[in-house]
């Protein structure tokens, strides 16, 4: 493959490239000898990889279809409703029907807007949302490309989404859109910092940016998962998860598209298929950040027991990811929305200092326990437990307390 694709982009996976092995062991024996003699393994590998990528690109957009339906069903359950029930059995085809509706809707382009950028923006967001999936390991060998710099690549690509958002907001020539896109840009740029810093704690412990290596370092069962490895990664997980909710603009951080404030934010003026692209991208993002959180902190495709990876760990990975997605939905249908200044305060005054503290703590932890031992993990789990109890006593008390009943005088 070396003479066709830039090799630096791919890591040399120590255990050997699965695609190469596949070609070597399965494809070439099948070929007639005359062909096989001239058949380069590398070329075959690239073909296989392209095919996989094709399947991926075909399959991944189906995710949002499922997730949209899931969101509606989850919301319905939260609200004592049934959700969509008419299209298909239990409403399973509802999203498809909505998609068809959106395709046939008028594709409105604001006449005063910037037409070129207006048309371009959804594609940028859509493309970036899906490019992220290339680096997410779904299973032991289920991965589009084992990038050397996997997690860094993901951050890079997802930071481009901001450009699409600004483009959409600006080119619509609507003040609500502009306000939404400015909010969104400020929010995403701000929350990228705690996000990145939380990732850094993981990278410090693992010593690699490669997603597969991060997963590999968590292969010793539940307590080798990075979330439990040190108390600091435990905090980092929550910062990461909350920041990623902010990154994907979901309640309580959905200010860029706060329908009760700025109508629909940056995609106010979009309709039809272009709106659907934003919509799909939003759900793809949601899945992507959950998948990343699962990979970084929850052992990725590695199971709870060491060495147990059913179907390459794929089902386990999907379950973990969907659990996080469900958590996001749960939050969305429970919480109100923050205000802009509160959002920024949360990021700059709480998350970033805590994230820096985490890095410091992780560094010190790494010095004290260079290797993960039973002792280090036990200490970590005990600290986490104590910390949780303490946090509940400090923060939870306020929640459990009832506000003073309003004075009443007859």
């Amino acid at each position: 493959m070396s003479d066709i694709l830039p090799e630096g982009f791919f890591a040399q996976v120590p255990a050997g490239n699965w695609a190469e092995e596949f070609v070597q062991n399965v494809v070439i024996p099948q070929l007639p000898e005359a062909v096989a003699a001239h058949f380069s393994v590398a070329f075959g590998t690239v073909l296989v990889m392209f095919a996989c990528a094709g399947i991926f690109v075909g399959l991944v957009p189906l995710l949002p279809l499922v997730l949209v339906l899931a969101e509606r069903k989850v919301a319905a359950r939260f609200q004592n409703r049934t959700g969509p029930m008419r299209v298909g059995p239990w409403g399973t085809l509802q999203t498809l029907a909505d998609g068809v509706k959106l395709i046939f809707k008028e594709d409105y382009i604001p006449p005063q807007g910037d037409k070129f950028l207006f048309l371009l923006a959804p594609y940028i967001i859509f493309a970036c949302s899906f490019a992220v999936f290339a680096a997410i390991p779904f299973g032991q060998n289920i991965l589009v490309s084992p990038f050397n710099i996997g997690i860094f690549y993901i951050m890079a690509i997802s930071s481009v989404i901001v450009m699409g958002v600004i483009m959409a907001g600006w080119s619509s020539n609507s003040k609500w859109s502009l306000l939404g896109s400015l909010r969104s840009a400020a929010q995403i740029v701000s929350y990228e910092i705690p996000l990145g810093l939380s990732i850094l704690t993981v990278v410090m412990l693992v010593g690699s940016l490669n997603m597969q290596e991060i997963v590999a370092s968590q292969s010793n069962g539940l307590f080798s998962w990075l979330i439990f490895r040190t108390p600091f990664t435990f905090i980092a997980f929550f910062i990461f998860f909350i920041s990623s909710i902010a990154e994907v603009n979901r309640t309580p951080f959905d200010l860029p598209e706060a329908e009760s404030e700025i109508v629909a934010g940056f995609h106010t003026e979009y309709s039809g298929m272009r709106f659907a692209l934003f919509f799909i991208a939003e759900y793809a993002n949601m899945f992507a950040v959950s998948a990343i959180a699962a990979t970084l902190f929850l052992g990725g495709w590695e199971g709870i027991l060491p060495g147990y990876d059913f179907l390459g760990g794929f089902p386990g990975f999907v379950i973990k990811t969907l659990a996080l997605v469900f958590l996001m939905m749960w939050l969305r249908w429970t919480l109100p929305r923050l205000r802009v200044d509160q959002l920024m305060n949360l990021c700059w005054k709480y998350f970033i200092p805590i994230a820096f503290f985490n890095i410091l703590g992780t560094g010190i932890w790494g010095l004290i326990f260079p290797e993960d031992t039973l002792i280090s993990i036990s200490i970590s789990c005990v600290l986490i437990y104590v910390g949780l109890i303490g946090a509940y006593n400090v923060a939870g008390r306020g929640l459990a307390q009832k506000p003073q009943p309003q004075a009443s005088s007859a």
Partner: protein
Amino acid sequence: METTQQTESKIIELQPFADEMVVNMGPQHPSTHGVLRLELKLDGEVVREAIPHIGYLHRCFEKHSENLSYPQIIPFTDRMDYVAAMNQNWGFCLAVEKLLEADEKRNFAVPERAEYLRVLICELNRIASHLLSFGTYGMDLGAFTPFLYAFRDREKLLLLFEKVCGARLTYNYIRIGGVSEIIPMEPGSITEQNFLDEVEQFLDYFEPLIDEYNELLTKNSIFSERTTGVAVMSAEMALSYGATGPNLRGSGVDWDLRRDEPYSIYDRFAFDVPVAMNVPELGAVVGDCWSRYKIRMDEMKQSIRIVRQILAEGLPDGPVMADLKAVRPPKGELYFRSEAPRGELGFYIVSDGTPKPVRVKGRSPCFSALSALQELSQGLMVADIIAIIGSIDIVMGEVDR
């Protein structure tokens, strides 16, 4: 006579390089509760000025009233505050009845049974109205679920109203001199006891839910962050702006017409008037959005209390309608105010002794409360504007009439 001296509308000069962005919030906006238009002058997210423009729902109530007989006006009052139409009917009927009572030649009095029914139904309507306010306030602040919870419960109330008068939103149930009978939707489908049982069932179902809603929204820390300390309306300011009802009590003024100037039979019931207090745990201060919101949550409990007292007593026997041949108040004029869910609903009626009024002015609580918006919103953020509008709980049908 034409004096057009001040009629020209203000023309906003376009200043291309100003820091200020002028944004039109509404009349078509998800959270302006109808068709309110706000002209926002923004500095980034900070609101320098929010100028309300109303009148998009002006239905010429006062002009219509001059050409209609008194009973014919009642359906028009339904359309004023369409989420608490019973109270609007009642407010108007009370004013007309007061004028009729002033006529010595008649011996006019509203029957007991009708009074009980009115209180019962209006308190239920107050719950429905506050529920809507609670739900939409949650939605304004980004929490969608309270909205559906509120609508689920409101639906049950609307079904009760439908059983009583056949309508779900614009009831025309309370008439001058009484109420229209409890009308069976189909023969034999509902009786008085049957109906009261259903009301009781609803109360049993609903009362614990208020606490649940408090858990869900009122005590939510994001919600209290968003609403506490925002747009504090002092008691003086509230009085000066004519804010009434929950908005006035939210500013710490202990005032409720039902208790302080009892009309109808409110003096027979025991109920508390919730008044805002500082809640330091949440950061709530008297007069902020949270206080105004909380008053409504607490008022629902008091309404339940009143309805329960009626249910315990049972409706007195007798007619539901006074023997009133024609509604023809004596020559005179009268202003009467009653406590509607959104505050004091006043009707000023000038009668010249004919069946049609000379002048009807509806003094709607939201109209006065909304005028405080401009002062309340200065220096706050766009999101706070939404929080204020929700907390003063406007219904544009009432503002614009």
